[in-house]
């Protein structure tokens, strides 16, 4: 096993540990144990950062080129967003869900490792590469937390935070707001980049179309909450479904018949 593979295995163990420790804390109703899960989660983020940093140095470029590389970066974004939400709203219940998402991403990464570090092709050599990808993955991460919170809202609609009297649905909404902002900025950046790289700011490429579908799905949610009766359950269901669109946009492009010639599909 390469050094990176060992570190990724270690990272998975760390995220798994935070998940298990959180469960133990919840079962035993021990505040300190629950708090420990947060520290383990934070330590996982440090390892995750180190892996990405090492690969960045080794590749001599931002490691966001291949599916495998983004599958190392996505957990990092999820962890960052989760810790920010923890800092803002004390939503410790996100730890097990985020840790599980990180584990899923890393497990997939281990199934599809790169055989070698690939060079950056001409189309990706752009100042837009890093901001576009980072903005999008931050958006995906924030939308993941909205998804997780929406599920919590569907399971525990009555729960209210002590500080703000806000329920999971409110926090899911806030996550969507932030995620949608990042999603829009990422879309705009991608569009401008596309203009510089290919001459078109929009080419009806399947990945672009699904980025649009995702964007429209969250627009449906953001407008839908103004319809009477959509607040609460139906809104949360839309929130969950919209995240399915996010995941399809990220990982599902290989399944599309129209994507064979796309420049966006991860090989």
């Amino acid at each position, binding site marked *: 096993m390469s050094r990176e593979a060992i570190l990724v295995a270690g990272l998975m163990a760390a995220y798994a540990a935070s998940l298990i420790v959180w469960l133990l804390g919840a079962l035993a109703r021990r505040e300190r144990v629950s708090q420990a899960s947060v520290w383990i989660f934070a330590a996982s983020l440090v390892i995750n950062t180190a892996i990405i940093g090492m690969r960045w140095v080794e590749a001599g470029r931002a490691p966001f080129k291949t599916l495998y590389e983004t599958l190392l970066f996505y957990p990092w974004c999820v962890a960052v967003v989760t810790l920010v939400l923890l800092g803002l709203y004390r939503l410790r219940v996100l730890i097990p869900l985020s840790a599980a998402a990180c584990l899923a991403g890393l497990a997939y990464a281990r199934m599809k490792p790169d*055989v070698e570090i*690939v*060079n950056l092709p001409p189309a990706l*050599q*752009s100042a837009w590469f890093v901001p576009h990808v980072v903005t999008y993955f931050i958006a995906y991460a924030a939308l993941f937390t909205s998804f997780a919170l929406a599920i919590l809202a569907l399971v525990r609609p009555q729960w209210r935070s002590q500080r703000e009297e806000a329920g999971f649905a409110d926090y899911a909404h806030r996550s969507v707001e932030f995620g949608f902002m990042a999603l829009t*900025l990422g879309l705009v950046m991608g569009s401008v980049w596309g203009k*510089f790289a290919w001459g078109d700011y929009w080419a009806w490429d399947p990945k672009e*179309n699904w980025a649009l579908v995702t964007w429209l799905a969250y627009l449906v949610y953001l407008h839908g909450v103004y319809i009477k009766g959509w607040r609460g359950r139906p809104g949360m269901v839309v929130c969950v479904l919209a995240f399915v669109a996010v995941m399809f946009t990220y990982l599902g492009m290989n399944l599309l018949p129209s994507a064979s010639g796309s420049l966006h599909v991860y090989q």
Partner: protein
Amino acid sequence: MSLIAVVVLWATLTGISHISSLRAGMGHLAVLLGAAVLGAVLSVVWPGLHRWLTSIPFAVALLGAVLVLTAFGTFVLQGAPPEELVKRYGSAAAEMMTFLSLDDVFHSGAYRALLGVLALALTLVTIKRKAWRLPEWGFLVLHLGVVAVLVGGLIGSFKGLRGFIDIHEGQVVDSIQLTNRDGTPQNEQRPLGFGLRLDKFEIERYPLEYRFLVYAAEHGEYAVIASHSMKDAARWTPIGDSGEEFRLVKAYPDFLLLEELRESDDPSSGPAVQLRVYEPDGSSRPLILLAAEKGREVATLSGVALRFVWEPDAYKPEATGELPERHAVAVQGGPEIEVAPGQTYPLGGYEMKVVTFLPDFIYDTKAREGRSRSPVPNNPALKVSIRKEGGGPSEERWLFARMPEYSHGSGEGPKLVYTYQAPRKPAERELVIVGKTREVIDYRRGTEAARALLKIGGTDEDPIAPGVTIGCERLLERAEEAHVPTTRSIEWQRPVAEIERRCGETVAREFLGAGPNQALRVGEDGPVLVFDKKSDDIRAYCSRVSVVEGEKAVKAATIVVNSPLEWRGYQFYQSNYRADDLSYSGILVVKDPGLPMVYAGFVMVSIGVIFIFYLRPRIRRARIAAKRSAL
């Protein structure tokens, strides 16, 4: 309710675009303008419609409809020929899809019209909310930003153009071949009003890197399962799951197997000298002469014969005379007789006819006969036909001067020995190296002209031909030849990896040349090890161009991917190259008058989302928190 209405709306728009039967170009504009005017007029005279168009449920339904159509456009093959659709989805479904324009959603009138309705609704809702008031500025910027993008896109699709330039170095092109969106050429050339000259096309590459790739068969197809850098492969590395391992001992960028002499313990080995020949171009090569091995004791360099003997009197060149070609045959142990092709000779109770002579015999397996590969006497062979004196069956056989053991035919006749003497002209000059006395004797036309002591390690200052000198590197009484792998240069001209393979306890050393043709296969269907250079090595395609107006070059620029040239409203993109014609460059040309509007829309949308979805909620929550603490 709204959802149904939007579906009906889409169906109506599809119908309209079918009635107008113009699926491209101005037809869309007609549909869009018609829908917009109709909508605007209707919404004024019919307040209910206006209310509905600006309602949230309508917005949600419209967004949902665009969403569903967009998703459809990715699941259904787009822009495919009808027969492909029929093959994939069946004829009924294909017909349905074509009728509903689902096979080309994004360019269909209905889809565009829905986007038009979206723009209309956004405009109406902005007016309805009186969004120009200060507290509504975020709403205004965001919604009108989307309208600006849509309108800019519309302008671009009607007033913009796309084209292509095929250009070679030195060529000036002043018009573009117009193309459709998918890149297929239209039947129109559009003059640019200026010229574009390709001064130079260059491909930049990443640093060359050779790696070890392990291929394994999966479902009958070989795919790369591992890739190891030379640095990593210095450690024992598994070759797939074969159980074998390899490691790189040394990599030779420009491989050469060097011949070298070594001291030998073997009493049967003979004397040898290792010379080095320096050519006029500065290169040098080794030359090994073996005194005891026939044919290898002499070499000819630029007409000068170099000969190596051990004993001082072992060789004296003939002062005069050419040696003619000579064939001689003897019954084994008997006297030799000289023969010539075409003649018949009595030979110890037999009659022998010499049929033919081949100087460089090989057996042609296709023609099933012997032929000569070259006129050089590398493998002299004589075809003879023998029979008993006074009659009887004749037997044909080949006699080989160099390979006497192959000379005997299957018949019962006598064993024949063939000796061949190649024709020889006396050398103008002959240098004889005498090993024992370490002397070099210079013979001119067979007569000793000079004699000198052999310098080991140095170079002979006296050139044997213009620019060609030789030096003696090693002289040994008992020598053996060794092959030493080496590299001629540090350029990766002929890369070879010297590797060790380990299977259990056994370790074998091998040379693995670069490239897939020299792959090392482990077992029958096992993994394959390939030493090859990294293939994704193109860093950039650069077209160095000049803009030519009149006769003058007014601007020089380098077009690379992600960095187009902009000139007079046209953008020029690096788009194509030809591996077999490196003076060619393919340039995509785009003109889009809607672009400033689209970019303005992007800026508005960006500012709008940051304000509405990030800043405003924080401000609100901060206010609420302040109120709370005030209470």
